[in-house]
């Protein structure tokens, strides 16, 4: 039971990342009809918002290290610590959550520029062409990041208050053996909050209602005198923000490098297809489902029977689901079927 619970938690936190990326991916597809293969790059750009803020906060003064006598060695002391003492140290240690404040405007801007600058010219082109151009854009973005930040992963620490493990087993009466890292619990909670916020925005605001109407019947909404295109552009920006926030909060779990987006993009695209193209609940459900399945496939008991299954389980399940349910778990009739 303990092992089962741990794998579920593991799957949920990984699934949280898949769900957040897939949510943005399917939102863009549902509104603009664009298959955006640059969406993984947005996740990676979000992660690098955290890296940028951390590097900004830790701009340092070099001070000679007297403990090294063989040669002239220098210790780097951040100006934040020199100027603000312990308060400066505390601000640096909270750089990841603070990055959210930076990532929201930056990612919104990136999303709007991307949509106005490139994507809008491909609305009426085939999906194959959209995939080609957005994939090319993703490669350009990742190479730019490689030039700016180098090719190696850059570790980001979670705030010290979230170090250590949460006594999950104790909370649900399974004893003290079942523990789970605090930051991963935070990530899971954060994913839930963002997903809820996006759904609430679409369901309970007038703006969201118009967007949903536009998703269902774009022409009729346009005939009512609403500039649906402008709203869809903003939806693209929101999708970019969602992917960016997912990237920011994931950095203490996986040190980001320029290739991070590609690693998640392929899996997230599978998640969208399994969930059903254009279905927001489908994307979220499939994200968590595939995350959990991947986690269980890594258990020794499973791998002893099916060696290497942890590497292919997601694709295997996708094949099975699409054979049984060709539109995915919650796909709508007519979407991508022309």
């Amino acid at each position, binding site marked *: 039971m*303990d*092992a089962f619970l*741990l*794998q579920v*938690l*593991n799957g949920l*936190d*990984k699934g949280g990342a898949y769900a957040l990326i897939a949510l943005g991916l399917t939102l863009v597809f549902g509104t603009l009809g664009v298959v955006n293969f640059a969406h993984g790059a947005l996740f990676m750009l979000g992660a690098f918002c955290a890296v940028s803020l951390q590097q900004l906060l830790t701009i340092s003064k070099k001070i000679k*290290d007297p*403990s*090294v006598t*063989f*040669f*002239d*060695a*220098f*210790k780097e002391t951040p100006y934040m610590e020199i100027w603000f003492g312990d308060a400066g140290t505390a601000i640096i240690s909270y750089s990841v959550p603070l990055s959210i404040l930076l990532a929201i405007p930056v990612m919104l801007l990136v999303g709007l520029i991307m949509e106005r600058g490139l994507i809008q010219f491909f609305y009426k082109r085939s999906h194959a062409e959209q995939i080609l151009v957005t994939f090319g854009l993703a490669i350009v973005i990742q190479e730019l990041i490689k030039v700016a930040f180098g*090719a*190696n*992963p850059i*570790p980001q620490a979670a705030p010290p208050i979230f*170090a*250590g*493990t949460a006594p999950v087993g104790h909370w649900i009466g399974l004893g003290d*053996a*079942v*523990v*789970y*890292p605090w*930051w*991963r619990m935070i990530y899971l909670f954060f994913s839930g909050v963002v997903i809820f916020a996006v759904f609430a925005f679409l369901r309970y605001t007038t703006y969201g209602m118009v967007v949903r109407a536009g998703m269902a019947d774009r022409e009729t909404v346009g005939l009512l005198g609403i500039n649906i295109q402008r709203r869809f552009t903003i939806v693209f920006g929101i999708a970019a923000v969602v992917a960016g926030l997912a990237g920011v909060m994931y950095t203490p*779990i*996986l*040190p980001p490098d320029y290739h991070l987006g590609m*690693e998640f993009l392929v899996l997230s695209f599978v998640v969208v297809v399994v969930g059903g193209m254009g279905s927001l609940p489908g994307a979220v459900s499939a994200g968590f489902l595939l995350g959990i399945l*991947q*986690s269980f496939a*890594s*258990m*020794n008991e499973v*791998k002893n029977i099916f060696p290497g299954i*942890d*590497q292919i389980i997601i694709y295997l399940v996708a094949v099975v689901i699409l054979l049984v349910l060709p539109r995915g778990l919650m796909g709508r009739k007519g979407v991508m079927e022309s």
Partner: protein
Amino acid sequence: MTKRDSDNPQGFSRRQALKLGAVSTVAVGAPAFFTRNAWAENFRNDPGNASSVTFGFNVPQTGPYADEGADELRAYKLAVKHLNGEGDGGMLNTMTPKHLKGNGVLGKKVVYVTGDTQTKSDAARASAKRMMEKDGVIMISGGSSSGVAVAVQGLAQEMGVIFMCGLTHSNDTTGKDKKRYGFRHFFNAYMSGRALGPVLKEEYGNQRQAYHLTADYTWGWTQEESIKNTTEELGWKTTATVRTPVGAGDFSQYITPVLNSGADVLILNHYGKDMINSLTQAVQFGLRDKQVNGKNFEIIVPLFSRLMAQGAGDNIKGILGTTNWNWSLQDDASKAFVKSFGQEYGAPPSQAAQTCYVQALLYANACEMAGTFYPPEVIKALEGFKFDGMGNGPTEYRAADHQCFKDVLVVRGNENPSSQFDLLKVVKIVPRSQVEYDPKIFGGDLGPYKV
């Protein structure tokens, strides 16, 4: 007057025939005597009369072992500087026996080209091939992965260019995959096991349950095998051995099963960024705070370096492992190298840097000993070469498998560092005799001198 033999219609006496034979032998043999070292036309990338000779440094500049790669490249650049008579000379001042004169190699200035192995065998081979075919390198060195080392070593044998391995720890490199054109200064997984065993027994006793997480390629497999054999000899039980993909990043799905496996020791057969990530995540999952079977849960990293310790931060404190060399050693050679490297780059060298620096010097020295760049002669100069003053005490390049034999260091993550670089504490210097083995146990065949 010469009497002609009636039975000899051509008129040659036996004496004349013998004289003619002797003269012919001298005439045919003379050019070979006067051009004793003239293999000029027979080997790839012969520098001939050029004023310089090119070395190829093929290191991981991207991928999970990129930190080691960057330090290796720093060391190579320093070695080239010292070979060309620039800088303070570093270990050229301590190396014995030494045939190098500080004027390049065989009077030719050393220049170099670099490549990125990307920590991938295919990329490493492609990069090495480019160096051999386009850049005209006389020797290749580098690599921070045994997969890469084995792949490039095979290519080196095919192309007839000597490969001086960088950091590679798999038993296979000088075992089943050994090659005549490949040489390894670094120690191997078998030696790590032999060196670590007695210390593990002393620290953790002989009633333990070990769980292995292993990088899924040649180095991981052989290290897992060597450490497993060692711990089982101590009386430990192996709960599970789990293979993980190289560069996995998030190891949580592999770490959670450890929590309830009954194991009280986690052995991380990971290196570089993989080790930093897996160790950090193991600590995040609270493994080091656990008590299992009435004992403190322990983590062991059989191979680690100061660079990894730096990346892992406080998580490495107290953890046992082995290393090829550490900058805190107090012999003259280590001190000279640390000073030279530190002045150049502002930080002490890693074990990867030391092994690469030494390899570059050893190759150059062997060329001077052979009096030629002709690979078969250089190989013969390296085989069985005994040397000292390179930071590891008396060392020998064993002719049978091209593996260097020297003392091995057992280290622990320093709990009370005296400086920002003082991250590893040497627990024990295990003598060479304790880690030596019969080359036959790993099989393999070196192959021919001439290719």
